[in-house]
Structure formats: structure tokens, C-alpha cells
């Protein structure tokens, strides 16, 4: 084992160099190569070790291949038969043993990390417990300790361990925030998965569904918002505040009869579909229409809501939301009114 460790140490400089190169790849809020939390870091460390070993192996193979191909080309006029070598016991043992050692160097930290990744904070009183449910094609987050339910934007306190319990309401999905942690599948009841990660730095991270789940699989995105402890408390409080329906009573009635049959706002409605409480403060509409007033990466939320509500099918094919115009019989004014109402439904 001592020898293994020394060999590992010799690989360190290359690991460091590779780490530097790879760290330049991709967005900070999205890339596996720019980890922003301990879980993703542990995966990244293993990756660096593995890549280092593998690059070393590749260099050896490429060098021998290049040498052989240049040195032993058949020259014009070469007629004599080369010596027929049966093999070489020593050489063959060498290239059996060296890969074995390399495998051990990788296997030991792998096994360690496997058991470390199995840590599950379900019983940790300090951890924030979140029940994640995957739906075609949106994510539901339920904070069991606080009685709060939300969708698409997972708000978490920075630095705290989040204990997840994951299940699916329909087909298999896979919950993945590349820069914070590896992915884990959401299975049906009976095979419910638990895991945990934390995000030490405040910020917004991009999450994705990684298991093919139907036409809009590629659009099943979500955001993780890591906020300060105080902000988190405030968010919880305003999530629990009583619902405010549209001022115009006619629009409020339309909203109640058309939207609240599936959605919920605060204490009103059913949360069969995504919960809409605090919708105006969300990072995106439907997970993919990014709310961005500058227009650089998306559009203002009102515009996004209008795009979505006027034709949900064209934004996210195969989604189960009824078409507001065709199926629910809403007029354009009513749709725009609801869009305006929802975009104003912000949290403190």
C-alpha cells in the first residue's frame, strides 16, 4: 500500500496541471469541471486522478505506437523474413502488473468516496430536508419541516447540508446539479433514493434532468438558489403568507376556476401541477424561459409568461398543462391579465 501511495504522489504534479486546464472549461454555475460544493469537489478530485492516470497510459501507448510505426516500416526491397517472436514472459508480466497497480491506485480512493457519498443527512437535525418529486417535465420541492412546497426553483441556505429524498410521480428522472453534485435517479415509491449536498457559496446554479423522460426531457431544467440563512428564513415566511388573488374580481374568478384547479398559490388551490406561490421571484418560466430584464440570456418575466401561456405546447412539447386558449377557453386579455398578475406575485 505504501508503494501505491508513492506512485500516487508522483502523479500529483500532473494532476495539478490538469486541474488548472480543466478548471477553465464551462460556466461556473453549470460545469462539472468548476465544482462549487463539497460533493462535486469529491467527484472532481477522483476525475483528476483518473484523468492523470489515463493520460499517462495514453502517452505510453501513443509513444510506443509512433515509434513502432516509424521505426519498423517495411523498406523497399526488404525481402528477408523478420524473426518470428513467440512472446516475452517478462514483458507480458510487466504489462499485466502495471495496469493492476494503476487500478489499485484508482480503486482505493474510489471505494472511500463511494462510502463517503453514501452519507445521508436524513437524521441530521441541522440539515434542511427536501422531498424532491420529478414530474414530466417539472420538479417539485417540498420542505417537510416547514410545510412549504415550491417548484422549479430550489431555494437553500448556503453552507447547510440539504437532505434529499427523491421520488418520481411518473417515469424515471434524474436529479442533477453539475456544479454542486453528481446525479441521482428519482424512482417510484419502494425504491426511493436519499442523498445530500451543500452549496457553500451563494448563487444560482443550473440543474437538469439526466434521464430520458419523454419529448421535453431536454427542457426539464431547474435552478438551485443558494441564499444566506436570513434570506432563507424570510423566504420561508413569505412562502407561508396568505395568498393574494388578482385585484380584478372577474380575473380572480377566472384564475380560480381555470388555474387553481391544478396549481396552488399560497393556501389557495390544488398543487397537482407546479405550485405558483411567489412566481414573480422565480429564475425562469417553465424552467427554460430565463427571466432576465436585460434580455441578454432571456426575456423579462412578463414576456416569458405570455409566451408560455399563449402556447405551452410549443415551449415544452408533451407537457400536461391544458392549452389556456383551446382547452380552457380563456381570451387573450384574460391570459395577459393572468401573466401580469403572476409576474407581480413576488416575495419580499
Amino acid at each position, binding site marked *: 500500500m505504501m508503494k501505491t501511495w508513492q506512485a500516487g504522489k508522483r502523479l500529483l504534479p500532473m494532476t495539478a496541471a490538469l486541474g488548472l486546464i480543466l478548471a477553465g472549461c*464551462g*460556466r461556473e454555475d*453549470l*460545469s*462539472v469541471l468548476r465544482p462549487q460544493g463539497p460533493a462535486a469537489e*469529491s*467527484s*472532481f478530485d*477522483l*476525475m483528476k486522478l*483518473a484523468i492523470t492516470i*489515463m493520460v499517462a497510459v*495514453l502517452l505510453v*501507448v501513443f509513444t510506443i*505506437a509512433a515509434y*513502432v*510505426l516509424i521505426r*519498423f516500416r*517495411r523498406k523497399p526491397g526488404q525481402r528477408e523474413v*523478420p*524473426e518470428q517472436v513467440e*512472446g*516475452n514472459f517478462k*514483458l*507480458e508480466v510487466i*504489462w499485466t502488473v*502495471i*495496469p*493492476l497497480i494503476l*487500478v489499485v491506485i484508482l*480503486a482505493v480512493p*474510489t471505494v472511500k*468516496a*463511494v462510502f*463517503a*457519498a*453514501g452519507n445521508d443527512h436524513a437524521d441530521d437535525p441541522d440539515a434542511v430536508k427536501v422531498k424532491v418529486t420529478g414530474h414530466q417535465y417539472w420538479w417539485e420541492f417540498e420542505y417537510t419541516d416547514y410545510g412549504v412546497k415550491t417548484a422549479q426553483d430550489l431555494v437553500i441556505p448556503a453552507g447547510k447540508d440539504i437532505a434529499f429524498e427523491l421520488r418520481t410521480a411518473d*417515469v*424515471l428522472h*434524474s436529479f442533477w446539479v*453539475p456544479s454542486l*453534485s*453528481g*446525479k*441521482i*435517479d428519482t*424512482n*417510484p415509491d419502494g*425504491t426511493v*433514493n436519499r442523498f445530500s449536498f451543500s452549496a457553500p457559496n451563494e448563487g444560482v446554479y443550473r440543474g*437538469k434532468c*439526466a*434521464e*430520458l423522460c*419523454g*419529448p421535453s426531457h*431536454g427542457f426539464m431544467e431547474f435552478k438551485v438558489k443558494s441564499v444566506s440563512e436570513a434570506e432563507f428564513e424570510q423566504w420561508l415566511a413569505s412562502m407561508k403568507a396568505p395568498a393574494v388573488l388578482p385585484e380584478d374580481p372577474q380575473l380572480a374568478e377566472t384564475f380560480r376556476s381555470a388555474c387553481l384547479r391544478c396549481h396552488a398559490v399560497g393556501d389557495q388551490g390544488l398543487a397537482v401541477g407546479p405550485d405558483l406561490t411567489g412566481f414573480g421571484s422565480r429564475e425562469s418560466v417553465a424552467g*427554460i424561459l*430565463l427571466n432576465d430584464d436585460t434580455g441578454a440570456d432571456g426575456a423579462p418575466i412578463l414576456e416569458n409568461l405570455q409566451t408560455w401561456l399563449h402556447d405551452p405546447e410549443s415551449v415544452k*412539447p408533451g407537457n400536461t398543462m391544458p392549452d389556456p386558449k383551446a382547452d380552457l377557453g380563456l381570451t387573450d386579455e384574460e391570459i395577459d391579465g393572468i401573466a401580469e398578475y403572476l409576474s407581480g406575485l413576488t416575495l419580499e
Partner: protein
Amino acid sequence: MDWITTVDHKKIAILYLWAGGFFFGIGGLEAILIRIQLIKPMNTFLDAQTFNELITMHGTTMIFLGVMPVIFALMNAIIPLQIGARDVAFPFLNALGFWTFLFGGLLLNLSWVMGGAPDAGWTAYTPLSSTTYSATHGVDFYTIGLQIAGLGTLIGGINFLATIITMRAPGMSYMRMPMFAWATFITSAIILFAFPAITVGLVLLTFDRILGANFFNPETGGNPVLWQHIFWIFGHPEVYILILPAFGIISEVIPTFSRKRLFGYSSMVFATLLIAFLGFMVWAHHMFTTGLGPVANALFSVSTMLIAVPTGIKIFNWLFTMWGGQVRFTTPNLFAVGFIPTFTMGGVTGVMLASAPADFQFHDTYFVVAHFHYVIVGGLVLGLFAGLHYWWPKMFGRMLSETLGKWTFWTFIIGFHLTFFVQHFLGLMGMQRRVFTYLPNQQFDTLNLVSTVGAGLMGVGMLIFLWNIYITSRKPADAADDPWEDGRTLEWTISSPPPEYNFKQTPLVRGIDAFWKEKLAGHQAMTPSEPVGSIHMPSATLLPFLMSVGIFIAGLGFMFSRDTFGSDVLGFLFNNYIVTGLGLVITFGSMLLRSLFDDHGWHIEPEELEGR
């Protein structure tokens, strides 16, 4: 008609080649469409549903209907010749295997024109592949089409096992067998053990979908993770069913064009056996993120990494076969030497994926897509190209153009690396696989463009190859018996293409690389091990074709048995299982005919042999 009734292994090989090539073309076209859709973010070239159908059919077609038949083509064409046999052990079954494969493949592809292709991915994970979430008949075409095609593979595998065990020429002990024969032998053994698993899985899924069973339905006590286990217990060995024949081909081509015997023959045999054995132990590394728990993840991580050891042995043995030799850069050898670094790159990413905590990040991303395309395209397809260019003169009696062959090689391999190397980075930067499009500004745009351009270049390589075949077929069949001049094994001792009976007299094998050994001893031909005598040949027959047509009809009938039809007649025929029954009557009727009427075949007499 001659082609429909043939039982000659060389003709069946050609049938496999054309059919496999046809499906390979379809799969390639699907790949190009996928890459065009992904050329830029938020592209609207294809809609999401069509895209999912294309990725499902691309994977399924390439694995089961594209590369497997081409492997079977080479095995059929070469194995009896390499071991000095006059045909495979069961020529009738050989034909049956081909026809069931072809009709299974046709059935699967009929889905494109009969109301929707399968759309749940080539792995068909439940519940997405259940009738609730995949309502068209697509997945039924998948389960029943693959079931029928799989029959053919299983029949073929058993046939090769029997052939290699019982029909080797005198003197050819196992440890004197060419590596391609060894690879075929072990591949066939894997088929024998792995295919029953997928057969069972497909039956269960068919029952879930058509008869309303609940094996994988969580609401009624079924378990969707069960499907994943069944699928991968087959699916992982399948990878070795694909790659071992490529290893075999490379082990033939490199010694021939280095004019040296294979370095470390016995360790090569041992490594192949070990890879096959380990291949059955590691299926759950496809399921690290399913939530198996740390113990299972650790065990499957380590066992998977171990496969690197025998694979490494092979890589270095090939390199040292060339060491001290005289390497010629013919087209087959270009593909073979291109295979070594390319496949090694696929192998090392495989070891990286084996580390479960890292795989939590790699899994279901473009990193995995890059990895398995390096193995399957960079390994297997380069191997098949090497094998096809190498044995083309033996199969068809014509040499493919070397100039065009080199063009094929360079366009294909450059296109390949352009397509797939960048995908490693796409995956690590957060792009998950099987997405029909992606949002802009995620730094995915340029790399996807590069990837698509590469795919186009690979397509050009394929077109040059097809052009090469076309112009070659117009030339006279005048290839020499030993066209590469340094042939080492028995297939090069007979004419190109070989006569119907292969060997007039079964040769006597005196060592590894039997023909090369005779050449070194100054002989021009093999020493025969028997006098010239009457050769027994099997009769041509239409029955294998009819049996397969029957299964095809039965499958279609079963699939639509619960449908409502516009026409009463159709409804009556399908809903009462009359169509299914008709198909089964054809199949079992053919079997009965085969059993009742003894066909003793015919003989080629010595006078006729001498006359030619």
C-alpha cells in the same frame, strides 16, 4: 431464388453483409439527422418526438441490425475457412439465423411507416416504455422486432460454437487456432449466455404492453429497476459480443502486415477469456445513479476497473507484434493501426466511468456518449473496416481500390475524432445526453457545431467506401489466392473466392499460422490430411425463409391483436389472433416438413473436383 434458398456459409455471409450494410446505412442516416438537429442551440429542424424516435432507432439499429450482422458476415465468410472446414456445423440453421435477423430488423423498421417508431431510448427503460407513457406501437415493434432478430443471433452463436468445437482441421488444436476464430468462439459463448436474458426481458415487456401484465408497473407491485437489471445483464456482455470480434480481426491483420506472428498468443487467448468472464460481472456499472447503495457501487466499480488489465495486455501485445517487424501500410492495416490508439482512448474513459463517485457526474451525459462511441465506432467499426478491406478479395475475388481505401480511412478517422472527442468536454461542461436541443449561452454551441461537422466527414468516408465497392464490383474477379502475399492462415491457401466446398482436401495443420509455417518450410500449399474423395453437400432449401416469414406475420398479428380497426374484416382477423395463428402455422408447418422429409443432401464426386 438462389439467394433465398442458399445454405452455403459464404453466400449467407454476403447476405448478412448486404442486409447489415443496409441497416447500417439507415442508422447512419439517423445519426446525421440527430447531428443536424444539434448543430445549433434551440434548433427546430426536428421536433422533440421525432428526435427521441431517431436516437432510439439509431442505437437499436446500429447495435442489433448494423454492426452485429456485419460481424456475423465476416464470421460466416471466414471461420469455416480459417479452421479448415467445408461449412458451418448446421448450414440449415445458419440460413434460418439470417432470415430471422432480417425479418426482425424489417419489422422493427416498419415502425417508421406504421404509426410511430419506438421512442424510449435503445435501453427502453420502464415506465417510459410502458403503454401509459409510450402510447404508439413503437415499443411493441422494438420488443417483437428485437425478439425475432435475437433468435437469429442466438442460432448463429450456437452454430459457431458447434462449428469451432467439432470441425477444426486435423492438427488444429485450440492453441493453434487463429485469434479471429478464438474471438468468434468466445463471442458465441457470450451470446449463448447473454441473449437469454434479453429474450426474457423482452417477453416480460411485451406481456406488460400487450397483455396488461405488471412486471414493471410500480402501481401494481412491479419494479422498473428490475428492467434495468435484466437489460444490462444482457447489455453489458453485448458490448463484448461487439468488441471481441474486432479484437480478433486486429489480431489477424497486424501480424499479416508486420510479417510477424502475434506477440504473446497464449496471453491473448487468456485475456480474451478473462474479458468475457468479467464482462458478466459488471452490468450494474450502468446503474450507479439508480441508487444501489455504496456496497454494490464499490463492488461493481472495482470489478469494472479490472477489465482494464486484460485489455491492456492486448494493446501492448499488438504494439509488440509490430516491434521488429516490417509494417506495411495497406488499407486494412491503416485501419488496424488506427484502431489501437483510438480504442485505447475509449478504454481509458471506460476506467474513468468505472469510478462510481465520478460516474455520478459522467452518467447520462455526452461524456458517456463520447466513451461508447470511441469503443463501438473507434473500436468495432474501425475493426470491421480493417476486416472488410482485408477479406474482401477472399469473399468476392476482387481487391478493393487501395487509393480509395486510404481516402476512406483518413476522412473517416478524422471525422470520427472531430465528432466524438469534443463530446467528452460537452458532457463535463454539463450537457446531458438524449436532449433534442439545448439553451444558448451554455458554452455548448461551438463544440456541437464541431461535432456535427465531424459527423458529416464520417459520412463522406462511408460514401467513398460505397463508391469503392461499386467500382470494384465492375472489375473482373481476378484476386490471387493470397492477395496480400503474407497471408498466414488457412483461408489464403484456397482460391478467391473459394469453391463451394472450400477445401478439396482437408489440410493438415502443423502449428500456429499454418500457411505461414508451410511457406517458411518452402512449400507452396498445405499438406492434405486426406485423399481426394466424394464431398457431401447440404441441399438448398426454402424452409428457413418460410419459417422467418411465419414468425414475422405472427409478430405483426400479435402486436395489433388489441387494436380497433376501421375495417371489420381486419378487426376480425387481428382481434381473434387469426393472423398470429396463420404466422405460427407457416412456421411450425415448415418445421414439420423439415422433420418429416429427410434430405440427405448431395455429393460432389472426385472426377468433378479434378475437372474444375
